[in-house]
């Protein structure tokens, strides 16, 4: 250790402009970093304070989860059953994944493992552009293009249904899933591919036997994030699903999603009314579900490091 006295050390610690700039930058970056946490906490507190008192005092939890009857505006006997809404969200998200998983994994495998040079660059840009299409535009496509196509193709009276919304949502979720899945594939060390190819494996054998197993957790995370996206998506689902309360029995049934319910009804409720509060309860539910999905995805990704 040095035996300098403190006075000498202070003399060495020069507070010139660079010192102040450095401190200022540190503070700014700190504020930027922490603001995200504060905002999320703030949102959580807000939604919680609007919804929680209602959940504790008035809500019949059994009815809430098991009744398909959502009649918040009934004067005489309002019921708040979200079973049909959950079924709507689940059926649309489920179908969306059926569409999105093969598309996005296929695209990711092609871009990461087979496409070369310019093809790959163009594809990547196109996929990123697809991810940037606003959801209302997707909803518009569902409403004005998919709707008549479904009516004609399947000879059904209404084209705004699970099939329409699921398909639209699948196309919406696919680009982001593709990007994440591609990142997962790219993270597989090149040495594995080289080793397998040097042993005579074909490109497809390399992908199937080496790359996919190695990227498994990243791919699962991509799918989970897609599910989270589907769960939380509002506008496109609102426009394409038909927005009528139903326990769907076929893909041609119109349904209503949790998110769409909040979006459509919150503006028309009296602040502080039971209806208003139950919509916040839906918000809490959505928040928890997407939080759990994202957390799971995150944990799955971290699992890579453990192996």
């Amino acid at each position, binding site marked *: 250790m040095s035996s300098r006295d403190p006075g000498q050390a202070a003399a060495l610690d020069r507070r010139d402009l660079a010192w102040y700039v450095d401190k200022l930058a540190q503070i700014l970056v700190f504020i930027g970093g922490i603001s995200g946490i504060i905002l999320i906490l703030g949102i959580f507190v807000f939604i919680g304070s609007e919804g929680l008192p209602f959940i504790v005092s008035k809500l019949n939890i059994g009815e809430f989860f098991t009744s398909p009857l959502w009649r918040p505006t009934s004067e005489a006997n309002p019921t708040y059953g979200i079973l049909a809404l959950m079924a709507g969200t689940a059926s649309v998200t489920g179908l969306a994944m059926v569409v999105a998983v093969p598309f996005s994994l296929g695209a990711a495998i092609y871009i990461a493992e087979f496409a*070369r*040079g310019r093809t790959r660059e163009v594809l990547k840009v196109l996929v990123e552009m697809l991810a940037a299409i606003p959801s209302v535009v997707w909803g518009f496509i569902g409403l004005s293009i998919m709707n008549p196509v479904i009516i004609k193709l399947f000879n059904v009276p209404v084209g705004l249904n699970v099939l329409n919304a699921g398909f639209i949502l699948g196309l919406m979720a696919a680009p982001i899933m593709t990007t994440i899945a591609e990142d997962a594939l790219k993270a597989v*060390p090149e*040495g*594995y*591919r*080289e*080793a*397998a*190819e*040097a*042993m*005579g*494996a*074909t490109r497809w*054998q390399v992908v199937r*036997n*080496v790359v996919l*197993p*190695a990227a498994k957790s990243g791919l699962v995370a991509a799918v989970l994030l897609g599910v989270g996206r589907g769960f939380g998506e509002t506008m496109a689902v609102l426009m394409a699903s038909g927005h009528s309360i139903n326990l769907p029995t076929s893909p041609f049934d119109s349904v209503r999603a949790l998110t769409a319910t909040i979006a459509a009804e919150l503006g028309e409720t009296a602040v502080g009314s039971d209806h208003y509060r139950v919509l916040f309860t839906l918000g809490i539910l959505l928040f928890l579900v997407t939080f759990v999905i994202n957390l799971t995805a995150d944990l799955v990704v971290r699992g890579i490091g453990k*192996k």
Partner: protein
Amino acid sequence: MKEQRINEAPAIVTESLNLWYGTFQALFDIDLEVSRNKVTAMIGPSGCGKTTLLRSVNRINERLGYVRTTGSIEVLGHDIYEPEVDLVQVRKQVGMVFQRPNPLPLSIRDNVLFGHRTHRERGVKVSRQDEDEIVEKALREVLLWDTVRDRLAGAATELALEEQQKLCIARLLPVKPAVLLMDEPCSALDPNGTEAVEELIWDLRGDYTILIVTHNMAQARRASDECVFMLLGKLVEHTRTDKMFVAPKHQETADYIEGRYG
């Protein structure tokens, strides 16, 4: 017996081999004959093309996509650059060991069986027992069996580096390659690991033609039968190792061996 081997045809023959990475020419008119069932070391300063030459012999170079080659490389009498050549077959005959041990992210057992499963004919069933035998034989050959016999299902990537490198050699053996290419196989290992892998390479000669790139002059000297010296993409000298290190024919070789550059 030694005389007999010398009379055998060489395992690898390159004729006026030129290679470009894009517009950069990395190899110039390489004529090389690699003797069968011997260890041939390639030495030379960084960037002299020795790794490039090595990676041309199983055409793994072509993964890069911007590589152009002229001339020919014959492996056991077949030109591997003929258009109708099946790369899968080339790589069955020519195994490769890389600079950094790169076991696949599978179990030890699956690593050893990977090549075998890849080259197995479609529809042919191999019983678990047969596979066990293949695994044991290959691991015994690389002196790894006793270390890993109890954890064959464990992840190969958790082995020590030296053991990983031995495993990378073991997984080549079940498909019975004729040639083993090794790209500085000991450079990521500590002295003990280097010694163990070198001994293993020395043990394998006689059964396999081994072409090994090395930066380590002492390694080339003690662990090879023949030595190839390359400089700036050209083959300068190719003689028996004991001769090269005692009486090199070219001034460049002498300078390099004595450490005046490189």
